[in-house]
């Protein structure tokens, strides 16, 4: 019997090899789709064979087995077409660095022609080394659906030139999508995104890559305090800060500082700086709101028309304005967003928070209730209904008796 921690460690080591082996195959001229399939088969074979017969060089073993699968596939293809067997090259010893391989594959998987859902799925499989079943589980879709999504994405890549440098901005967006996709589920997508972002920072000097890693770390550090034992959302101002992961905060701050030192700011660095200021406050009351507001000023200055192009930044800034200049000023800032995101739950939730900050509890209760009606997530919906009930119960206008009317 192999114990669980050993199995997990072995799988982790195995998955870390995936991008290196796959990149080697694709660089050699193999078709991305076929190479990825062959490597998946080799991985399954490895999980079966390695416990009994561990290879001396796991990476070479995977490359050899995957190549053999490719040759087999090509032979049967050739037989089907009645053609001569295609020639193939023996695997060359890889001369490239690990970081280059990761970056190369991320550019393949995050090809701008693919939809975001496909980019995410392909990245998790080809770079993250997750199985289709694991990816399907993480996104709560049937395995067959995810398999189809992945094979369509790979087909879309056929014939595309994969030797050009890709768009790093797309890669960063895809990794952030993976991060925000969830901390729940059978697969820890947030942890996976951090692992991939860490690999990416080894491959590029671009400060935004480090900004993204810092943002994830500084955010992830608060995860243990974000839900109470009943699964209820705990807002930042009420979190038990003793539960925050100080090691992750430390790493996040160091990564952020090294990115900021390059002096080429971008949105991930700025958002990481804001997260760092929250993480740095020993209590909610000690939050350095003036400095957070200054960073939000930088954030909204990154786009020409922030209200339309980056309403989330304007909304975040409105909260900071509320804390620095007063609730009324914050609410005025949210007014500018009414036409753009006035139907989104977050807009109403922020207004509820600002009304509460200003002491207007009946208005806060109404705004939270409006937010709850627009929420698209059960935990957030429940949280907003609780906030509404709490504000109404504490409000001065409560008449003590509930009006009886149909729901």
């Amino acid at each position, binding site marked *: 019997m192999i114990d669980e921690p050993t199995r997990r460690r072995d799988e982790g080591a195995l998955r870390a090899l995936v991008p290196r082996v796959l990149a080697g195959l694709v660089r050699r001229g193999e078709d991305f789709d076929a190479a990825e399939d062959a490597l998946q088969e080799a991985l399954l074979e490895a999980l079966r064979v390695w416990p009994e017969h561990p290879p001396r060089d796991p990476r070479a073993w995977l490359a050899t087995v995957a190549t053999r699968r490719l040759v087999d596939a090509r032979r049967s293809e050739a037989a089907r077409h009645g053609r001569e067997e295609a020639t193939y090259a023996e695997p060359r010893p890889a001369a490239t660095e690990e970081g280059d391989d990761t970056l190369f594959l991320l550019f393949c998987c995050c090809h701008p022609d693919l939809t975001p859902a496909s980019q995410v799925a392909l990245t998790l499989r080809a770079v993250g080394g997750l199985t289709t079943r694991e990816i399907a589980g993480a996104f709560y879709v049937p395995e067959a659906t995810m398999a189809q999504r992945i094979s369509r994405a790979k087909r879309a890549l056929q014939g595309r030139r994969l030797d050009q440098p890709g768009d790093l901005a797309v890669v960063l967006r895809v990794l952030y999508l993976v991060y925000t996709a969830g901390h729940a589920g059978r697969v820890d997508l947030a942890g996976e995104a951090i692992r991939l972002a860490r690999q990416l920072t080894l491959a590029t000097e671009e400060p935004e890559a480090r900004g993204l890693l810092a943002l994830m770390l500084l955010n992830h550090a608060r995860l243990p305090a974000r839900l109470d034992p*009943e*699964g209820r959302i705990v807002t930042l101002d009420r979190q038990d800060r003793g539960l925050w992961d100080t090691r992750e905060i430390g790493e996040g701050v160091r990564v952020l500082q090294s990115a900021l030192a390059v002096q080429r700011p971008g949105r991930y660095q700025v958002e990481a700086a804001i997260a760092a200021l929250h993480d740095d406050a020993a209590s909610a009351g000690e939050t350095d709101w003036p400095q957070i507001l200054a960073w939000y000023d930088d954030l909204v200055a990154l786009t020409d028309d922030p209200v339309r192009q980056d309403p989330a930044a304007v909304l975040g800034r409105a909260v900071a304005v509320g804390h620095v200049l007063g609730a009324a000023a914050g609410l005025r800032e949210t007014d500018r967003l009414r036409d753009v995101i006035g139907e989104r739950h977050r807009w109403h939730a922020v207004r509820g928070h600002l009304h509460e900050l200003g002491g207007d509890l009946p208005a806060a*209760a109404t705004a*939270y*209730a409006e937010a*709850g*009606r*627009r*929420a*698209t997530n*059960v935990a957030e*919906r*429940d949280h907003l*209904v*609780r906030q*509404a*009930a*709490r504000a*109404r*119960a504490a409000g001065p206008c409560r008449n003590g008796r*509930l*009006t*009886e*009317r*149909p*729901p």
Partner: protein
Amino acid sequence: MPKYLLLKHYRGGPAPHRPVPPMDQWAPEDVEAHMAFLKHVSELLEENGEYVDAQALTPARAWVRYGGPDAAPVTTDGPLPETSDLVAGWYMIDVESHERAVELAAYVSSEPGPGGEPLYEWIDVREVMSGAPSATDPA
């Protein structure tokens, strides 16, 4: 074993047995008790081996139909009459019998409302048609 959907509604169905205000106007402890009960129902169904699925729907709704050749889809705009039926979510259960489905629906309906009193909410019980043909010949 037959599968049933236990549908909860935002509105529609028979007249409420006990009219109550929206939940954001309940006392906070009543909200907590209600949510704890719903969590308990899911756990109970899982423990019993009767749970298939549970989902909640947002109240936003659009009716859509084919617009005809070369025409955009036709959608309703604006809110629908307050009297129209609006599903809020469901439990899908896999149970021994129709009687068991009714028993579970009644239990869901006993969820606590304002003042901790049961809500007496109407639950819409629907049997799911099985996809696979029966293993035996039809009689």
